[in-house]
C-alpha cells in the first residue's frame, strides 16, 4: 500500500490519531525546551555534523582501526554485506553455543535485517526486552517509531494484550501495574538466556569499544547475565575518538526524548572473564548510499527520532503508514535507497517544511534530500514516475480526509489556513521556534508538473 492509503487507514480512529499527534508533539516540545538550556546547542550540532562528515569521508580506515582495536580487546568481528549474511552470522553463533532462546534489546538494524523471523524459522525463541518492543512483538507488529516502539497503542490495548499474554487483571490499565508484570515476565527471560543481542549506538575507532544507551537497563540485564553478547552494528556507527562521545551523548537523549542523558550508557571494550563479545559489522545498502553523493549524509543519522516527532505527516499518519523499518522523514530518505520502487511514495509524504532538518542533531538536510528523491523518482524513472503520480493521486485525492490533511499541511497553506480543517490546531506550527524554511516546491506545484 502507498503512504497516502496507509495514512487514511490510520486516521480512521480519529481520537487515537489525535492523541498520537499531540503526544509526539509533546515529546518534540520537550526536546525544544531542553535544547534551549544548552547555550552551545547549535555548536554541538555543528560539531556532531562535522565529526560524522569526517567519518563518512574516512569510513574505510576508521572501520579498520575499529576492527583492529576490538580484536586486540578480545572481541570477535564479523562482516556482513547484507541482511541475509548478518542473520547467518547470528544463527551460526547461536548454533555453536547450542542456544535456543535469546534476549534482544532495541536494535533497528536487526529489524531492518528481519532477524526475528529468520531465527524463529530456525527454531530459536527471540524475546525483545525493551518494554515497547515486547509489546509490539506480542502483537506480531514491527515498532512504529524507532525510539517509542509502541507509541501507536493505547494503554487499554496493552492491558488487554497483557491480560491475554501475561495473565494480568482484566481491565487494569495502570501503566505501573502493567510494567511490573512485564518486569517479572522478562526477568525470567534474562535469567535464562545464554546469548544476548544488542544494537550499537556508537563504535569508537581509537579504542575498539562500543556504546549502548538505554533507559530501561534491558540491554545490560541481558548481556551481563548471558555468556555471549552479539552486538549488531551498521558500519556508519563509527566515531573516531572516545571524547567524541561527549558531543553525541549530550545530543542524543535531549533530541530523542528531551531528557539530559539516557540513564544507562554502557561502554563495552572487552568481554568479562569467561565470556564472549561478537560484533557484526553490517553494510546492507550503506555503501551504496555512501556512493550517492546527494544522499550520503543520511548515513550520519544517530536514530534519535526527533525528525519523526516534529514531522506533521508522521504525527498524523503513524509509523506504520511508511511501510519501512525506519519511518518518518529519515526513513523516507533511507528507504528509497534500499528499494526505490517499493518506497516510491515516501519522499512525497512530506510538506518539505524543513522542520526535520531543523531539529536533526547531526544536521542532515532531510527535507532537501526528500526533494532530491522526488526528482530522482520522477525524472530518472519516467515511466515509473508516471505510475507514481497516479498512485499518489488516487491515494490522496480520492480520500477526502487524506486530501484535507495533505492539503492542509502544505507549506503555503499552513500560514494562512484557519484552524478548522482537521482536528489538530494548525497553530502547532506557530509553537515551533525553529522556523521552517520555505520549501522549494509545494506538493501542488510538484503534482502539476509531474502529473502528465
Amino acid at each position: 500500500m502507498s503512504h497516502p492509503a496507509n495514512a487514511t487507514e490510520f486516521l480512521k480512529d480519529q481520537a487515537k490519531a489525535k492523541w498520537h499527534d499531540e503526544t509526539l508533539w509533546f515529546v518534540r516540545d520537550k526536546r525544544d525546551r531542553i535544547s534551549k538550556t544548552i547555550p552551545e546547542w547549535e555548536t554541538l550540532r555543528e560539531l556532531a555534523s562535522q565529526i560524522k562528515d569526517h567519518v563518512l569521508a574516512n569510513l574505510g580506515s576508521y572501520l579498520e582501526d575499529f576492527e583492529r582495536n576490538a580484536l586486540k580487546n578480545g572481541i570477535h568481528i564479523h562482516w556482513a554485506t547484507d541482511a541475509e549474511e548478518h542473520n547467518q552470522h547470528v544463527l551460526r553463533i547461536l548454533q555453536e553455543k547450542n542456544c535456543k532462546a535469546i534476549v534482544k534489546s532495541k536494535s533497528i538494524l536487526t529489524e531492518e535485517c528481519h532477524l526475528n523471523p529468520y531465527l524463529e524459522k530456525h527454531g530459536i525463541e527471540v524475546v525483545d526486552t525493551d518494554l515497547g518492543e515486547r509489546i509490539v512483538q506480542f502483537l506480531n507488529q514491527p515498532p512504529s517509531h524507532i525510539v517509542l516502539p509502541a507509541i501507536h497503542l493505547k494503554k487499554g490495548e496493552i492491558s488487554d494484550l497483557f491480560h491475554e499474554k501475561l495473565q494480568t487483571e482484566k481491565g487494569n490499565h495502570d501503566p505501573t501495574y502493567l510494567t511490573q508484570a512485564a518486569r517479572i515476565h522478562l526477568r525470567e527471560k534474562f535469567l535464562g538466556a545464554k546469548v544476548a543481542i544488542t544494537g550499537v549506538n556508537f563504535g569508537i575507532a581509537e579504542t575498539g569499544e562500543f556504546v549502548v544507551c538505554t533507559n530501561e537497563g534491558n540491554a545490560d540485564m541481558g548481556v551481563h547475565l548471558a555468556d555471549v553478547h552479539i552486538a549488531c552494528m551498521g558500519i556508519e556507527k563509527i566515531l573516531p575518538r572516545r571524547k567524541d562521545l561527549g558531543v553525541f551523548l549530550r545530543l542524543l537523549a535531549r533530541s530523542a526524548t528531551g531528557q539530559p542523558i539516557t540513564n544507562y550508557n554502557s561502554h563495552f571494550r572487552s568481554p568479562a572473564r569467561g565470556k564472549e563479545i561478537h560484533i557484526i559489522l553490517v553494510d546492507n545498502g550503506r555503501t551504496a548510499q555512501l556512493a550517492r553523493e546527494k544522499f550520503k549524509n543520511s548515513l550520519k543519522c544517530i536514530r534519535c527520532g526527533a525528525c519523526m516527532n516534529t514531522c506533521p505527516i508522521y504525527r498524523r499518519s503513524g509509523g506504520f503508514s511508511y511501510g519501512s523499518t525506519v519511518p518518518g522523514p529519515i526513513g523516507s530518505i533511507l528507504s528509497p535507497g534500499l528499494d526505490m520502487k517499493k518506497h516510491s511514495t515516501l519522499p512525497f509524504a512530506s510538506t518539505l517544511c524543513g522542520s526535520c532538518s531543523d531539529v536533526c542533531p547531526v544536521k542532515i538536510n532531510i527535507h532537501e534530500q526528500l526533494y532530491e528523491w522526488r526528482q530522482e523518482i520522477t525524472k530518472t524513472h519516467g515511466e515509473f514516475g508516471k505510475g507514481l503520480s497516479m498512485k499518489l493521486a488516487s491515494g490522496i485525492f480520492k480520500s477526502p480526509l487524506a486530501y484535507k490533511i495533505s492539503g492542509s499541511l502544505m507549506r503555503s497553506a499552513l500560514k494562512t489556513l484557519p484552524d478548522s480543517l482537521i482536528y489538530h490546531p494548525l497553530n502547532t506550527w506557530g509553537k515551533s521556534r525553529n522556523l521552517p524554511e520555505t520549501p522549494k516546491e509545494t506538493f501542488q506545484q510538484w503534482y502539476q508538473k509531474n502529473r502528465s
Partner: protein
Amino acid sequence: MVSKEQIMSSRERILSAIAGVPSESKKLPEIPAFRLAGDLEELFATAIMGNKGEVLSKEEFEKWLPTMHFSKVISLSNHFKTHSTHELPEDPHELEDLGLAILEGQLGVAENGAIWMEDSNLGLRALPFITEHLAIVLDRNKLVETMHQGYDLIGNASSGFGLFIAGPSKTADIEQSLVIGAHGAKSLRVVLI
C-alpha cells in the same frame, strides 16, 4: 552456513566498496571545553532528581537504610563496608534476590547527573542492574561540569566495561507514562561524601 572465506570476502567487499567512493577530505574538528556555570553540587543534585534519582548525605543514607530491612545487601564501598550481608558471588544469577547494592562511582557530571563506573567499581557487571535498589557513593570533589570534562578525566583508561549511570531503570513505553523500575534498579540513591 558461511565459510571463513566468505567472511574474508565480505570484509574486502565492504572495504573496497567504500574505497571506491570518491570523497573530499573533511577535517575532524577539535571539541572546545564547554563549561557550565553554577554550583556543581546543586546542579548535579537537580539533574539526578530530574532523572528520578535522589542525592543524600551519608547521615541521611544511614538513617534510610535500616528502614528498608533488606535481607541481602552487597556493598563494595569502603565507606559502607559493614553493611554487606553477603559476599559477591561468582555467578551473577545468584544476585537475583539482591535488595541493595552499594557501589562507588568515579566521577559525576553536573549537567546531567551521569556517574562514571568501571569494572573495578562493579565487582560483577550485572550488579548495578540486577539489584532491586542501587546506591552509589561519590566523592563530592569528583563532580565535573559537562560530559566533555567527564571524558577528559576518564581519558582512554582501559576498563573492559564502563558506564555512565544517571538514574534508576525507567520506561515510558505505555502511553508515555513514566514508570520507574522497568528491568533494573527501582531506585538510585547517590551518597555524596
